[in-house]
């Protein structure tokens, strides 16, 4: 277990290093770090002096090392367009994205789980088949169209929900939340549904497939032969065994939810990191792009680690054996 844990952490660090490397390459070679500070019209001499003082003439490993050290201390450079430290921009927008992503993931997981279990247990039911057919349409429905459709229906036609922004937020230190005000909650509904919808269909189909698989296993047949109630068989046995792969995959989806927020945030003018990223791509703000990449990489790595750890909680076969879970 400890060995496995160490291996996971080392692997996470390596992935993070690779992501940082890509981010650094973008930062250093694609963008123009000097122009970002002094502007396009500085003299050549000014530029050279600045390059020297910034250490841009140092050997590559030294520069990369410095980039890493700075990043670890929270210095990710300065935005070309806004002239502010990138970290400040990220921190400012982080709560909006995290709140949106977590609620979406929760929404997708709970509804997806419930529908998936229902579809598996009532395989031949009419409602289950309708849900399955709709989920296939859901996969073909681009996220932005769901958002636009919801806006048209609930904001333009019915005027029930606001079409953009977070509404009123309440601040706790640097963290802001929309969960405590009515307008904040109302503003969350459509973005959460939009962002969660795709994951919902994914989780639902996954749960259904896994559960049908588990219901065919010998231990479920044996549980039946032991005379356990349908409830115990379906929920204590089948569902718990279904959860092992589902939690893994659903957990890994959390990383994607944060990245997928790019689209949803743009549709709803949500003041989060995704919208910031799209803006930065549009105007080629390399430091912000690089920083966002590092952020997503970090989320991905942390989520992976946490999912690896949940394995041990969920599957006793892995505890104490040091075995690597089969993916």
């Amino acid at each position, binding site marked *: 277990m400890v060995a496995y844990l160490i291996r996971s952490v080392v692997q996470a660090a390596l992935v993070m290093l690779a992501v940082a490397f890509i981010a650094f390459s973008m930062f250093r070679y694609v963008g123009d770090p000097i122009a970002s500070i002094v502007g396009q019209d500085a003299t050549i001499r000014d530029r050279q002096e600045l390059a020297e003082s910034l250490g841009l003439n140092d050997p590559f490993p030294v520069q990369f090392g410095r980039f890493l050290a700075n990043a670890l201390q929270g210095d990710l450079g300065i935005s070309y367009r806004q002239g502010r430290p990138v970290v400040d921009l990220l921190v400012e927008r982080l709560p909006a994205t995290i709140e949106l992503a977590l609620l979406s993931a929760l929404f997708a997981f709970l509804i997806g789980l419930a529908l998936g279990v229902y579809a598996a247990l009532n395989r031949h039911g009419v409602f289950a088949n309708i849900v399955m057919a709709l989920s296939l349409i859901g996969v073909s429905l681009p996220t932005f169209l769901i958002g636009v459709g919801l806006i048209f229906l609930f904001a333009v036609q019915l005027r029930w929900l606001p079409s953009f922004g977070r509404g009123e937020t309440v601040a706790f230190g640097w963290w802001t939340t929309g969960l405590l005000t009515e307008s904040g909650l109302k503003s969350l509904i459509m973005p959460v549904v939009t962002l969660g919808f795709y994951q919902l269909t994914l989780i639902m189909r996954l749960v259904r497939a896994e559960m049908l698989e588990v219901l065919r296993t010998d231990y479920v047949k044996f549980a039946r032969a032991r005379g356990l109630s349908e409830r115990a068989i379906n929920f204590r046995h089948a569902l718990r065994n279904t959860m092992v792969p589902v939690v893994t995959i659903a957990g890994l989806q959390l990383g994607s939810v944060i990245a997928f927020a*790019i*689209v949803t945030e743009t549709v709803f003018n949500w003041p989060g990191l995704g919208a910031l990223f799209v803006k930065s791509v549009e105007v080629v703000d390399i430091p912000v792009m690089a920083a966002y990449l590092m952020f997503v990489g970090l989320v991905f790595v942390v989520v992976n680690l946490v999912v690896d750890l949940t394995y041990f909680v969920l599957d006793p076969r892995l505890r104490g054996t040091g075995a690597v879970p089969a993916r």
Partner: protein
Amino acid sequence: MSDPASKPQASAAPMGAIGRALDADLWFWFRSSPVAIVSAFVAVTLIAAALLADVLAPQNAFDAAQLNLLDGFTPPMERGMGSQMLFLMGSDDQGRDIFSALFYGTRLSLLVGLASVLFSLTMGISLGLLAGYVGGRTEMFIMRVADIQLSFPAILIALLIFGVARSLIPPQQYETAAVVVIIVAIGLSNWAQYARTVRASTLVERNKEYVQAARLMGISGLAIMARHVLPNVTGPVLVIATINLALAIIEEATLSFLGVGLPVTQPSLGTLIRSGQKFLLSGEWWILFFPALVLVLLALAINLLGDWLRDALNPKLR
């Protein structure tokens, strides 16, 4: 026997697999699946419409000279104020016929989708073969990158590639390069799945005797394996490619919708939807609705075909 590749397996394998993929059996399964027939019909119709855009479209929607501003915002099934022409699906702010614009938009969406699938297919198959054949560190490196890439959403990767390309290409040349950039961006973000499939199949073949024999005789094992592995993966690769085509079309639409895809002068379905969004709030719903409808139909039809193909090629599910 001078050439080990001409042994029976060599000729049988390609015949067998391609034959299997396209044989009468598949045709039978196709005919007995109403979903597949309807999806194929929708997909073929849309593709034909895209190919024949110049002939079929009532108006060359992107030739400014043909537009009449007085026709602006004509609702569907009404005649324009200026040209008196009938607008089947209405017109946009500049009097552009939405129905005509759809032909061109679909063509561009399909072009980008197909080209990027071809791109990722070629890249994925080559890297998969290489990884499986060479093994060792090269394999580990390629597969690790594939793992990492697969866990990031394609849209994010495409956006990054897009952003980088944008800063490298001078703005004045950008409009002409946009289509290529977006094809590469989407293509680069989707190769990993092919690589995985091909590598798995390559690993199986690598240790077979004919490959060993070829190696001993100094013939490049890689070329021979390509000839044996590729037919074996035709089925799965075809399934991945079909589903990826739908994804690529959606991805392109999303990028264009976000304003980082194709410019307004070369509108795809996504660009049309983006420009339609402005007018949604003021009630001109048709400018957005019809492009969105076509996009969903196209993606759904291709997705359903892919799903059907996967089931049909999987003997376990029959």
